[in-house]
């Protein structure tokens, strides 16, 4: 090979006008495949799903005679709407016209802060959600029957709030486990969907950082 790559490029594109642009179909209604847009869509859908989910929970729980639990779950979901809205708003500051490094870094920073905001809340949400369900279970008729059955099988004099200590202990342990692993669960879930993309972004950023040093 004797020709330089610069010469190959120049000769190959000597008449740039000959390059044929592909046909554009309904461009401005096209669904974006960009990762930032996809994440924005995910947050937007989250907001709608949470609002709808809250109402459904409230109605369903009211129908099965547990309106307070429905209301409680609604209250637990409300901060999620606020987080999703806040993160979505932040994402609109990401301009694709920045330098590649700045663009990838601002995307990465936004992503990390979003994940952090969500996972911090899930650490509270999951245990509180479980506690709400457990409390509703205990005060329900079926729960009362179950507790009576437990007391017959494992009688004890140690009662806390009128409940056998082991039941309280079991609820406390599950609540603690949920609090401890909520963050892991959320990140694991996110990684299943976007893990590959996140890894690729990390590699890109690392490569670009070496160019800056």
């Amino acid at each position, binding site marked *: 090979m004797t020709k330089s790559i610069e010469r*190959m*490029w120049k000769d190959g594109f000597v008449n740039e006008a000959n390059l044929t642009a592909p046909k554009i179909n309904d461009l401005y209604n096209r669904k974006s495949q960009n990762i930032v847009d996809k994440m924005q869509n995910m947050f937007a859908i989250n907001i709608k799903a949470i609002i709808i989910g809250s109402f459904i929970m409230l109605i369903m729980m009211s129908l099965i005679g547990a309106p307070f639990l429905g209301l409680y779950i609604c209250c637990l979901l409300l901060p999620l709407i606020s987080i999703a809205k806040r993160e979505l708003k932040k994402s609109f500051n990401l301009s694709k016209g920045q*330098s590649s490094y700045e663009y990838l870094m601002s995307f990465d920073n936004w992503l990390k802060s979003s994940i952090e905001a969500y996972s911090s809340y899930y650490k509270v949400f999951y245990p509180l959600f479980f506690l709400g369900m457990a409390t509703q279970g205990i005060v329900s008729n079926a729960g009362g029957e179950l507790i009576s059955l437990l007391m017959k099988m494992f009688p004890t004099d140690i009662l806390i709030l009128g409940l056998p200590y082991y039941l309280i202990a079991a609820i406390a342990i599950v609540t603690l486990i949920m609090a401890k692993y909520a963050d892991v669960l959320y990140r694991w879930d996110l990684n299943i969907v976007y893990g590959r993309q996140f890894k690729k972004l990390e590699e890109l950023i690392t490569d*670009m950082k070496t160019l800056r040093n």
Partner: protein
Amino acid sequence: MGSDFYQLYILPFAGIIIKICRAYTNNQEDFEDYYQEVCLQIWRSRDNFNQECEWPTWIYRISLNVCLTYLKRRKSGAKEIISNSLPDEAIDDSKAFASDEINQLYSAIKHLSETDRAIILLYLEEKSYLEIAEIIGSNTNNIGVRIKRIKDRLNKYINQKD
């Protein structure tokens, strides 16, 4: 938005987009998807264009940033992947351009990392080290060294093929 924007502000610079998208795709279908996505993002970002740079530079930036963060579906449809991160994927557009030499060069460029592809494309488009550093967001001093290395690798690939 009418098609005027595309006709006036994108189509005259389609060559830039084509050259970049070709370097990040391995087949015609993906190329067309990337091309459309870049056009869409240029249109969506038009209000952010603050004339700190030239319009063609803006197009380079958007094109590269979109190609670097484009999500495409694998043929199975099961998972999305970012950019063309499949090293084992067949490069089947060896006839994408009229010139065999260009096709050969592109085939070599596709063996490079995403960042290196961006750098060499800008270099071949006769952008100065300063411009390349600004578009990529890197240090000007490192660009020269990196280009030297990329060129060596490209020559090696091309010579191997010959």
